[in-house]
């Protein structure tokens, strides 16, 4: 059973949030229990190049404002067992990103934070069950298509990396524009906890 799955929603180009401003925001989420799941701690990795940025450590999975590849985004990586099907698990991951986005956009200390909601990066962090190969991608395509349909309706799927050492990552691109509210509505039944 795949349990290390994740999704990343990229910020719009030009959005480059100040990592220092994210620390009190995420610590506030813990105080007010503003996200689903067991929220434990905030880790600061802003000192590393293209790194995980600021990370909210949770029992079920970690949520970060991630700077990998120099493309900031909201990443949720599930660590423990998730919903019974892969599409349900991925929808729960996306929903966690969307809920975090909604909270971040309310923060005065993070002005102008906008997401590119037409694209979702799906990440399988499990080299045993989901290596970064065309075969592994093909074997998951059906489940990924179902996930994409439930999230966006019409959407395309593409394997992201060629390097077999990398995680299997899939770019899901919607045919149409979507708002944060509409995606929250489409994922309303999913939850990480």
């Amino acid at each position, binding site marked *: 059973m795949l349990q*290390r799955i994740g999704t990343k929603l990229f910020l719009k180009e030009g959005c480059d949030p100040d990592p220092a401003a994210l*620390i*009190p925001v995420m*610590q*506030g989420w*813990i*105080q007010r229990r503003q996200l689903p799941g*067991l929220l*434990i*701690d905030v*880790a*600061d*990795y*802003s*000192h*590393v*190049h*293209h*790194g*995980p940025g600021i*990370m909210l*450590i949770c*029992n079920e999975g*970690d949520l970060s404002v991630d700077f*990998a*590849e120099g493309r900031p985004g909201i990443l949720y990586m599930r*660590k*423990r067992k998730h919903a019974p099907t892969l599409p349900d698990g991925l929808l729960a991951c996306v929903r966690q990103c969307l809920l975090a986005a909604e909270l971040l956009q309310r923060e005065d200390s993070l002005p102008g934070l906008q997401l590119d909601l037409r694209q979702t990066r799906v990440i399988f*962090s*499990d*080299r*045993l*069950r989901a290596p970064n190969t065309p075969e592994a991608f093909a074997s998951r395509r059906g489940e990924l298509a179902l996930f994409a349909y439930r999230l966006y309706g019409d959407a395309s799927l593409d394997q992201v990396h060629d*390097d077999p*050492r*990398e*995680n299997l990552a899939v770019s899901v691109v919607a045919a149409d524009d979507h708002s944060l509210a509409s995606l929250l509505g489409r994922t309303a039944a999913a939850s990480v906890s």
Partner: protein
Amino acid sequence: MSDSWKAALQDRMPQDWSREIDIFEGQMELRRQDRLDEKVFAETRLRRGIYGQRYDNGQRHDGIETRPLDFPSGDLTKGPDTMWDAPGMQRIKVPYGGLSIAQMEALADLAEEYSDAILHVTTRQDFQLHYIHIDDTPDLMRRLAAVGLTTREACGNSVRNVTACPLAGVCRDQTFDVTPYSAALADFLLGHDDVQDFGRKFKVAFSGCEHHACALVNMHDLGFLARTREVNGEIERGFTIYVGGGLGTVPHQAQVLEEFATVDEIMPISQAVSRVFARHGEKRNRNRARIKFLVASLGIEEFRRLVREERETLPRDEAWTDWIDEVPVEWERPLRAGMALNGSDRPAGFDEWYRTNVYRQRQPGYSVITVNLPLGDITSWQMRQLADIAREYVSDNVRTTVEQNIVLRWVPDADLPALFGALKAVGLGDAGAGTIVDITACPGTDTCKLGIASSRGLAAELRQRLAVRNATMPDAVKDLKIKISGCFNSCGQHHVADIGFFGNSRRSGNHKVPHFQVVLGGQWDENAGSFGLAMTAVPAKSVPEVLDALTDRYVAERERGETFQSWVRRLGRKEVRAMFQQWTKLPTYEEKPDLFLDWGDSRSYSIGDIGVGECAGEVVSLFSIEISKAESEHFDALLALDEGDYRQAEGRSYQAMLMAARALIRTQYLDVSLEADDIVSEFRTRFYDTELFFDRYAKGKFARYLFARYASPPARNGEREARQRIEEAQLFIEATHSAEARINGVIVNPA
């Protein structure tokens, strides 16, 4: 395709390692079923390198209040007060720091899949992964075993990672390459029967030379310093063996056990030392259980006699010597032919990087380059890119360092500009390795449950500020070393830095203020030749200003060629303390609320569960007044030490402990006399027997310093005794501060 890592890697793991991991997995299951005692499982887990992290007791102070963390496994624990589901740390041993490309790539994968995509290099050349779930550890260990890495005995009361100078084999000043000897001893001691019954951990290091930092043998439980001698016209290799060094709360310089031991003796002598330590070392009181205490209490002569006696009785083991004939003339081979740098185009930033990050090897045409890792961290992606760079330029000639960096060895000089460009492209081309910006820091409050202040937060702040000024900084300042620990336990090696800091806290009104004790004048060279001494504690947020004041004054006042250590000695402790005085007087919370926060943390400062009691009033307490007198007495002890008056230094330190104890007693009983008998008796009854003085981790450790000194005044008054008492008094005073705050209550959040 296999459906488990165990099946997939069965043929790639050493059989004995594979079996050990299976056994550990079985022990995990027994613990889940409550058929294995939690204490036994905790030590088992530690010996597999799996360590607890902050909040693993299922509670967290979130800046407003302490709240439970309701982990899904409920009451299931992985040790006393340690919840099963709580994120933990996995330490991975890297003997002598040697890494292969396959190992680098495996580490990158493991960090990404089981941790947070960050690999952290430690001050023992290990790697640490944080936020690991214990359920993931057997597979993690199997994947390491498949590339020749183990976590066995990376923590726990056993032999930790065997370290060695990262320049061994290529150093211009080395006596000979210590790499094969460190590798062989690490292999010999791993899981050896004679290292399973220690009262505490045991650290081993190998140095190729005496005068550089090399592997810091003076601060190790067991250290090997390369030597040669001429016998019948032949050069014979051997080692000076040191024993009983260590940092920790009370630092000790190692002493010479054997002036010259031939290479065929390093294993039997290590085995004999291990047996003596296991047999005679303290087991019940873990705070006196390191071998340094045994050596100090027996005296080096008696310890040496016991080791030699033990050595004579050891049954011969072929493993002592069967590796010697296989020691290669050259441990490593270069991937490419050496070639001079001359004439190559130099990209922007290259010259500064070359000045600080490149070391010219003894082999012409080759250099070692240091990849300067901020706070010892590298991402999984960067590690893969670095593996590719190694593949292109140096192959498996890669090592970690105790300064939390990675070095690539055998780089042809002509390749340096291209290699610099490749490193820059992946964010690993920072200059400043080994300089003031290359700050060492332990995990501190980020993840360590013993952390008192944010060592990483402070290190990040200082690194950022110093990097901006780096270009204009005088060389005398650039070359200083800063090392930071989150508490007095010295994991950041603050004792051997020019400028060291360790975390503690102070009270202002009803609030706790994170502080760092400033430790000046430690020596990194000469294999950690001398330890710095604590000057005074300053608020964490004031450290950058303190550092500026210190370095500015050093630049302004230093005499030609004068080292920082010499300047500090010349300035004198009194003057240093006077310089810091402006930061030691604490404002109220209302006057300066930012001072009551730690670096990188927006929460009101707290240390775990303390500070949830009732308000004790805003007035300056009697305790605050009296403890300040104890601190003053302690300072006078330091001055006496500087003047070489060891008797007075020791006596004043003891007096400072008595005064601190009395300050605490008077919060309950005003009429306690000034007599030592009364103070110790009252303190024992009111605070030790009741365990009110005990903190969560050290328990009554620091109180026992007072009791031991009260019961047994020193037989002699040498420098060693004076330094030890000064350290003990410092820690006792710190513990008294903490106990008072815990007992009498501090409000940590004004809301």
